[in-house]
C-alpha cells in the first residue's frame, strides 16, 4: 500500500495527523522528514512520546528519506510522510519520482505570509515554489482533515487573488 499522504505541516506530529487522519486511515507508521529533527535526539524523543503505541515513527533527513522512500512506499501498512516546510518537500520530491500528490496541512501565519486558508499562509516565494511543484505534474491540494474537501492549489490561490 502506498504512503497515504505526503503532508506539509509545520506542527508535524499533532492531533490532526495522529487522530484526524490516523484513525480513519488506520495509519500504522509516520515518516518524519526534517533535517533538524533527524539530528536531534531530544526532538526525536519529543515526537516519539506524541505517537500512540500502535503507530511507529521514523526520522530521516531529506537526503536519507530520498534513499529510504521506496522501502516505506512498499510497506503494506498505511502510513503518512510529513515535512514541516515546503522546501523539505520540494527537495524530497526532486529525488523521488513515485510521489504523486502533496497535501498542504498546516503552514501557519508569520510575518510576510498571506492567508489563503485558515491553516495555509504563504510568502510569495512559497507560493511560487508550490506552483513549481504543481507544474511538475504533482497534485497539490490543501486539506487539513479528511472530512474537509481537498482544495486544488490553483483554486486556493485564485480565491485569494479575487478577494
Amino acid at each position: 500500500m502506498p504512503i497515504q499522504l505526503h503532508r506539509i505541516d509545520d506542527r508535524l506530529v499533532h492531533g490532526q495527523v495522529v487522530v484526524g487522519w490516523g484513525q480513519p486511515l488506520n495509519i500504522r507508521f509516520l515518516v518524519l522528514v526534517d533535517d533538524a529533527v533527524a539530528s536531534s535526539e531530544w526532538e526525536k524523543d519529543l515526537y516519539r512520546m506524541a505517537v500512540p503505541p500502535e503507530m511507529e515513527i521514523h526520522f530521516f533527513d531529506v537526503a536519507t528519506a530520498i534513499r529510504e522512500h521506496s522501502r516505506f512506499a512498499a510497506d503494506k501498512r498505511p502510513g503518512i510522510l510529513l515535512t514541516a516546510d515546503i522546501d523539505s518537500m520540494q527537495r524530497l520530491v526532486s529525488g523521488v519520482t513515485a510521489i504523486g500528490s502533496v497535501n498542504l496541512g498546516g503552514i501557519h501565519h508569520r510575518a510576510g505570509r498571506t492567508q489563503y486558508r485558515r491553516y495555509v499562509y504563504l510568502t510569495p516565494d512559497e507560493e511560487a515554489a508550490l506552483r513549481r511543484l504543481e507544474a511538475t505534474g504533482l497534485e497539490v491540494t490543501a486539506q487539513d482533515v479528511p472530512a474537509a474537501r481537498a482544495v486544488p492549489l490553483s483554486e486556493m490561490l485564485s480565491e485569494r487573488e479575487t478577494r
Partner: protein
Amino acid sequence: MSEELPAGVPGRAVVVGHGAFAEGLISAVAQISGMGEKLIGISNTGMSPTDIEAAIRSPLETLGVRVIFTDLPSGSATLAARRVMRNAPGVVLVSGVNLATLLDFVFTSCPTASEAARAAAERGRASLIVVEPG
C-alpha cells in the same frame, strides 16, 4: 509582574487545547466552583508551533504559573508545552485534562505544583467511567 509565590506553590494554571476546549472547560469550572480565574485558557487554533510556545510561556513568566494542562498527549499544545518546559524549571505538565482534573486543581491544598498536578491527574483519571446498558 510575577506573582510572589513561594517556590513550588501551585498557584494558577494554563489550560491549552484545540478549538474552544480550554474556554469551555474553564467556563464549566467557573460555573461549578466559582474559581475559573485560577485558570488561563489558550486555544491553539490557527497558531504555528512557535506561536503556541509563546502563548504558553507568557503566563509562566508574567504570572508565575507552574502547571500546564493540555488536551491531547499527541497534540501540538503538548509538544509546545514540553519545549517550553526545557527552560522553565519547576513547571509541570498534565496532558489529557478533563473537567474533574481541573476541579481538583482549583481546590487543591497540595503544597507544590507537582503534587497538585499528580493529584488532579489522578482525580481526572478516576472520573472516566463506563456505564453499560442494562
